[in-house]
């Protein structure tokens, strides 16, 4: 196990950025573990959420941003709801994902790919085109077996549209994405 040198390895800027972007004060956390206790995803996390909070407090940017946990959090808000110190933990997890994206990190790539495919679909059509999203995701990840078993169950129900529902204002939506990219690159 790595020894952390708390004087040298403490990334003050990282702590500051997390606090600023989330609007949360991480020093409020007293490590009771309630977030971990309630988190439905703890079993797949590489670092439980309470330890993510601890590592943020300790300024351990690299460990946190390269963790799988931040990509496996579903924002179910259990942690935020039950935190005795009123910390919006789910928001901090969101912010950590934002930061990881900026650093080019994604420890669970298929989750990021799925979310990106989703947003691509919104950007292209104004609304999500479910079948298109799935096809796009499969194409990007090569995970061609994804949900193949469900096809026979759902296709006959006539629920999955074969064509996207294009909206009239889809270029409005596309412009939101364009402006967002411009703003974040400036």
């Amino acid at each position: 196990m790595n020894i952390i040198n708390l004087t040298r390895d403490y990334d003050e800027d990282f702590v500051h950025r997390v606090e600023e972007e989330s609007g949360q004060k991480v020093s409020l956390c007293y490590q009771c573990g309630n977030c971990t206790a309630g988190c439905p995803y703890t079993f797949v996390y590489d670092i439980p959420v309470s330890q993510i909070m601890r590592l943020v407090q300790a300024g351990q940017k690299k460990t946190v941003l390269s963790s799988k946990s931040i990509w496996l959090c579903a924002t179910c808000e259990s942690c935020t709801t039950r935190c005795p110190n009123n910390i919006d933990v789910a928001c901090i997890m969101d912010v950590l994902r934002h930061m990881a994206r900026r650093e080019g990190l994604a420890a669970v790539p298929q989750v990021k790919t799925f979310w990106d495919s989703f947003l691509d679909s919104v950007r292209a059509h104004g609304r999500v085109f479910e079948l298109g999203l799935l096809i796009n995701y499969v194409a990007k990840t090569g995970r061609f077996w994804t949900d193949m078993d469900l096809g026979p169950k759902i296709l006959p129900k006539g629920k999955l549209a074969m064509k996207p529902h294009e909206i009239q204002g889809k270029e409005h939506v596309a412009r939101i994405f364009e402006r967002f990219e411009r703003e974040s690159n400036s």
Partner: protein
Amino acid sequence: MSEAIAYYPGCSGLGTSKEYDTSTRAVCAALGLSLVDIPDWSCCGSTPAHTKDHTLSAALSARNLQLVANMGMTAAATPCPSCLTNLRTANHRIEAAPFKAKVDKLLDEPYGGDVNAISVLQALVENVGLDTIKAAVRTPLKGLKVACYYGCIMNRPPELMAFDDCENPMAMDNILAALGAEVVPFPLKVECCGASYGIPRPDVTAKLSGKLLEAAVGVGADMVAVACPLCQMNLDLRQSQVNRAMGTNYRIPVPYFTQLMGVAMNIADTEIGFGKLNVDPRPVLSRALSGAD
């Protein structure tokens, strides 16, 4: 008494949760709650948007809220908790002027910030009321044991959602009780089902949904009533994946609560759309309603 509220069906309402959309529309119409479609609404961005950026996420929601404002209305109802969370979060975050400025920069038309978003569930409880629902029951769901599952974000975090009890919500229970069903106390009402990990991490979703199905069967429920398209898909469509992963053999129907309202209110089968579910609730339903067990 006819009340009007803007209606935001959400993308899945056009696809995987069509039956939620049709049953919601039919039930609300029958109860005098007029749902007015938002012209040319777009996707709220759902979870993927807020995991990418909060400004982007808020802008995608704000576009729709402003469309509602342009209709001259001040409130919108949505059946989908994920849409609801995004719409409400956008409203909450833009209370801070610097954030609002950033959002407005992304939009064609800035959002004024004065459209409230609530769930269809909340609209049914608060705008329509249990008494009206009770009075509209034609076929009481007597003998049907239902577990009400709300999903993780219908009521959380409580400061944001500002509806019902966040640990033990009762709105859906009360509606189903009003329909005459026997509501069994379901302890995992607000546990997460695995959300959108069904595609990228089916193992995760299978495990979490499996726990929910286990608990529902454990409390003797005939079916699980839900209020979220994603929950419905995970518990119903992916039930076979759960069974495979957990070595179980569940076959429990997972209808939307609006579908059960439709049954009790004698709404047309085409609107209820039970045929679109994976596990068809009708056999269980007719067995329970006929008193045979």
